[in-house]
């Protein structure tokens, strides 16, 4: 399922923009491909990332996968409940399973991301 109103990357991260803050998570397609998530390595608060830098790791019983920062900026808040309940990514990838909130350094980079429709098409082409 692709959620409307979010932006997406080719690496299957999603971004929710509120003012100059971007909430980041992984898409439903990503969590489905990974299977049951067993561990999430969250970024540190106040860490800075450039666009496409690996910022977190999501591990499942099948694979360990990097999460790439969809947009340059500084981490303001991380979703620490994921440390004890990584299954939130499977159960609620767009809501409770968010990974972190980034204060955007360069909001123009948002233009490089896909909207829900374009991401849906991208997924269809991939399969």
């Amino acid at each position, binding site marked *: 399922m692709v959620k409307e109103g979010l932006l997406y990357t080719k690496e299957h991260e999603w971004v929710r923009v509120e003012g100059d803050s971007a909430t980041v998570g992984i898409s439903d397609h990503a969590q489905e491909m990974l299977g049951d998530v067993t561990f999430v390595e969250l970024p540190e608060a106040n860490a800075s990332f450039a666009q496409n830098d690996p910022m977190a790791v999501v591990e499942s019983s*099948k*694979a360990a996968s990097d999460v790439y920062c969809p947009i340059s900026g500084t981490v303001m808040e991380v979703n620490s409940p994921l440390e004890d309940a990584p299954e939130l990514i499977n159960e609620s990838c767009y809501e409770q399973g968010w990974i972190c909130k980034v204060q955007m350094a360069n909001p123009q980079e948002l233009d490089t991301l896909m909207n829900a429709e374009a991401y849906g098409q991208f997924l269809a082409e991939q399969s």
Partner: protein
Amino acid sequence: MKLVFEKSVPSRKAFRMGPRDVPSSVSIDESLLRKKPADLPELSELDVVRHFTELSRRNFGVDTNFYPLGSCTMKYNPKVNERIASYPGFAHLHPLLPQLRMGGMLTQGALRVLYEMDRFLCEIAGMDGFTMQPMAGAHGELTGLMIMAAYHRSKGTQKKYILAPDSAHGTNPSSAAIAGYEVISVPTGNRGILEPEEVRRHLNPEVAGLMLTCPNTLGLFNPHIAEICELIHGVDGLAYYDGANLNAIVGQARPGDFGFDIIHINLHKTFSTPHGGGGPGAGPVGVRADLVDFLPVSVVVKRDDGTYALEYDRPHSIGYVAPFYGNFGIILRAYVYILMLGKEGLKRVSQNAVLNANYLKEKLKDHYDLAFDGVCKHECVFSPTQAMLDNDVHALNIAKSLIDRGFHPPTIYFPSIVREAIMIEPTETESKETLDRFIAAMIEIAELALSDPQQIRDAPVTTPVSRPNETIAARVLDIASIA
């Protein structure tokens, strides 16, 4: 079946010490003594023997069933390997003996095995020197990368990156990272192989080397291998051959002739020594002539008088990477295997491994999706068809269904570039009859996945435990057997 702890009966014993008839002269500090006895099972000798015999009857291995585990080369281990390795002259040798004064003369047989194995592997791989020390494939990778780093250091060049294709075994990037390099993952092209164009695109003067498995984890040989090695040499990088899939080409072609500079060989795969369950493995590392000085010490040399000795005077060596000489018992088994087969026999190994894999591929490709069509080498990668996935039948379910039919599940969900991968490697030791039974089972599963998917989703039903909860096991790590 009960756990051995659940069978425990208070004060039951397998052995009773006689009563002490002399006064105790040992006094142990109170703080060092246990406050209460260790929580160990209390059982008779017969209880223990029956418990472990029953457990052993539930073992599943190459000696009991077909084990088509892709990428792992679970071939049959000829029993002659075991017989020779159990000779007391080998099995009871102390590893310090050749290092003691005059001890070398008492260990000439073992030293000769190490020396000749070095020569054999050089001949097989097209290299100029080997170390037997690395204890497993990944350990060999790290050793090879340390040699690569020593080479670049000796030339005073600054190197930062290792190239590895995205189809690589996970050990490649992790070995590179532990050796201090950054990894550049190079995407696999549409043909399922690493394309020279992609290598060129990712190449820069700070590239220390490339790690490549060939044939790769899709079972495909790369026809551009010589060109790719040349590209790497063009920036004074070194080409590292991951020997995980050497079984596909052993006796036919030599990585050194393609242009590779460093190689590790998984003896436990290609040369039929026991593995699975964590080892013990052996991952000897070979290098081209100008890298020989960097090999770990000690090195076994043959003196002019025909005797063998350990040599330590290697000032450029990267040092020890393992205690003593590696897993000697495993090296010895592989040595026996090579001697028993000879050059002609080794050629037939790879011929039959490739023939068996292609036979399976042709028979199954109408029933499952084939990631990359064409002639494969020693293994091939399938996926469930879309109709199976629509029925909620995934690679995992297909693998579990094979257990009920008497086969070890193949490797699944690897390589990660293939969705729902099912990676099958039959090896050369299986007969056509066994392969046909496996094919029949796979076809039956494919049909049931469409007609009765619930049966496939419920598998296995014939095992003592059906489906352990792998997610809980990974999320809640608890490895203590005693609470």
